[in-house]
């Protein structure tokens, strides 16, 4: 009888403990685009699952933590095809998911944000690097995990100036994104004391990326294109459209290093980064996805980890609670960058160190030593509070 009683007490104890309660389910949507942007280099060709693969790893990490907190995480993916209505897709995804990670171009992201404005859905931008999304076009319901063009450009400029490569030959592509990157590079040069000795535009005349005739023509074209430039230390290329920058290294008229869209590239993540415990996430990622981790993967991982951080700290899966937690001044997340990452409260941009990589190794990490700031040295990268055009709400 007594034994039976003890058994019953034991049972009721188990039943009343957290594990027996209904788990908290956190449903995360992933809104991306179908089709991938082609790269000049075959080894840099992105995978079909570029980005979402990082989110999947973070969901797995969150679920490991969730085991101890009785939280379960789910990920639903929607890929927009050309011409598909982004507002409609975002709304449909938001019907089932309180939190959405978006990997969309700037205009599509704004449409999604505006379609979800009156809901309590949280939107995390893990793809678009456009400064205007954090400035004149900022939205109160979007947190930006991806760095901005100006953060990337400033990170590169700090290093080049530290290296005393202060005379830049700037070569800009003819597409819109290239021009935006060039704007960010010009701003960075002016901020950190570099001088653009000449600017050249590389016109995209169309044509196939890969041809049977190979590099013969490029080998003749690139030296001639860079001939006759005034004395310069480094060629900085703005070619987000992947038209010419990767053809520049070893082919310039003068023997000079390349930076920007080829050569030394500023990025939020690289498969070669192994400092600050990063080797652990690199290993986990390869194990799960059978390929190496890209910047887009890391941005999506960080977005999904921020959600996990918020749900474990608040013990809640409610999107509004999650959002309020992320916006608190003492919020921070660890993302293998050697220091805590925090949000800029004036535009909800994630502060982060930027890696400078050459395709095989991490050459340096910015902010560089000596670039000081009264609040956070990470705010030496990108548009700072006094200059912002963003008005939230």
């Amino acid at each position: 009888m007594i034994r039976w009683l003890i058994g019953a007490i034991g049972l009721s104890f188990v039943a009343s403990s957290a594990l027996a309660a209904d788990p908290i389910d956190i449903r995360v949507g992933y809104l991306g685009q179908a089709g991938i942007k082609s790269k000049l280099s075959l080894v840099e060709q992105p995978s079909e699952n570029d980005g979402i693969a990082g989110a999947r790893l973070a969901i797995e990490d969150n679920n490991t933590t969730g085991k101890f907190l009785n939280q379960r995480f789910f990920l639903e993916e929607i890929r927009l095809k050309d011409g598909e209505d982004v507002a409609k897709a975002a709304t449909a995804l938001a019907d089932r998911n309180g939190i959405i990670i978006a990997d969309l171009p700037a205009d599509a992201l704004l449409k999604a944000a505006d379609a979800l404005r009156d809901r309590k859905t949280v939107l995390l931008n893990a793809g678009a690097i456009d400064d205007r999304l954090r400035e004149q076009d900022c939205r109160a319901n979007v947190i930006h995990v991806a760095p901005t063009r100006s953060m990337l450009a400033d990170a590169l400029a700090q290093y080049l100036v530290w290296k005393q490569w202060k005379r830049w030959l700037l070569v800009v592509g003819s597409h819109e994104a290239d021009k935006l990157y060039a704007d960010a590079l010009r701003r960075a040069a002016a901020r950190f004391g570099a001088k653009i000795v000449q600017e050249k535009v590389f016109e995209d005349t169309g044509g196939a990326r890969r041809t049977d005739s190979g590099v013969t023509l490029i080998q003749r074209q690139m030296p001639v294109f860079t001939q006759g430039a005034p004395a310069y230390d480094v060629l900085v290329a703005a070619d987000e459209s992947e038209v010419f920058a990767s053809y520049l290294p070893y082919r310039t008229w003068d023997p000079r290093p390349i930076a920007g869209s080829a050569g030394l590239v500023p990025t939020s993540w690289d498969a070669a980064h192994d400092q600050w415990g990063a080797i652990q996430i690199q290993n986990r990622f390869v194990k799960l996805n059978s390929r190496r981790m890209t910047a887009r993967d890391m941005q999506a991982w960080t977005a999904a980890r921020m959600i996990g951080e918020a749900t474990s700290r608040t013990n809640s899966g409610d999107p509004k609670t999650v959002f309020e937690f992320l916006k608190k001044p003492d919020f921070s997340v660890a993302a293998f960058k050697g220091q805590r990452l925090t949000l800029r409260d004036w535009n909800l941009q994630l502060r982060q160190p930027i890696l400078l990589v050459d395709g095989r190794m991490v050459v340096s990490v910015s902010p560089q030593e000596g670039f000081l700031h009264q609040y956070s040295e990470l705010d030496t990268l990108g548009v700072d509070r006094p200059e912002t055009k963003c008005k939230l709400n």
Partner: protein
Amino acid sequence: MWRRCLLSGMAVWLAATSPALAFVAYVSNEKSNTVSVIDTDKWIVTHTIKVGQRPRGIEFTKNGKFVLVAVGDDDKIEVIDTATHQVVDSLPSGPDPELFTQDAAGKLLYVANENDNTVTIIDLEKRVRLGDIQVGVEPEGMALSPDGKILINTSETTNMAHFIDTATREIVANVLVDARPRYAEFKRDSSELWVSSEIGGTVSILDPAKRTITGKIEFNIPGLRREAIQPVGIGITKDGKTGFIALGPANRVAVVDATTHKVTKYLLVGQRVWHMAFTPDEKYLLVTNGVSNDVSVIDVSAQKVIKTIQVGELPWGITFAQP
């Protein structure tokens, strides 16, 4: 003549000021794949031992005959014979072992394996793996309660201190702490458990009985940005009155009143200070400075850095044999 006189005079002076007891410290050098042996009589490196790849966690066995060192990139723990200064054996840990702890009898070894979210239990006599315990993402810090009943493991991405019952090998409690918990240390009387959070920039004080956070040690160094303060290694004196906390890239060790949990002093040491160990008589505390490739010697009662000893590249862990 003069010179000889001076030299012998110095030798006499050195002998007179040297400590009464000489101890031996073993330091793991993460980059150079070596272990440096330090003699605290002369404060010099007497031996440099070649080990496997990426040595980090390091500890004497309880009988003092061997030093165990986790060589993470070789997925094992190597055994150094302290008599011959040679690696004589290795233990089968899980992948990428980093920190570990032993039971009081020196029979069981508990290892944190960063790569597969497990804590591995190894039988030290038979040198076989007894089993694994599933924990959070990126397990790191390991500590055993003074009575041996509870094992603490911290997981760096899950941000928890897991309480594991050593008898059943089951997790009995999980306590959320600040970001990237790296190290755990009990007070000798079991009244407190300290857990350092590298990215969170705090040390949480836990009540081991209630398994809740009762306080936090915060750091504030004028002129230093908050992000640079990254607590890792912890040392608490046997009387439980004073704590020392290594603050990583802040290049300082914080001295903490372990009763009020307030920082009383910051000691400037080398660059990127990681871990620490007391000499068995607790007169000195040695801390490893990862970036400046040296070990700082702190006089515990004076709370002053008295010496710096050059070791191998990127020193990380340090251990003393207990007499």
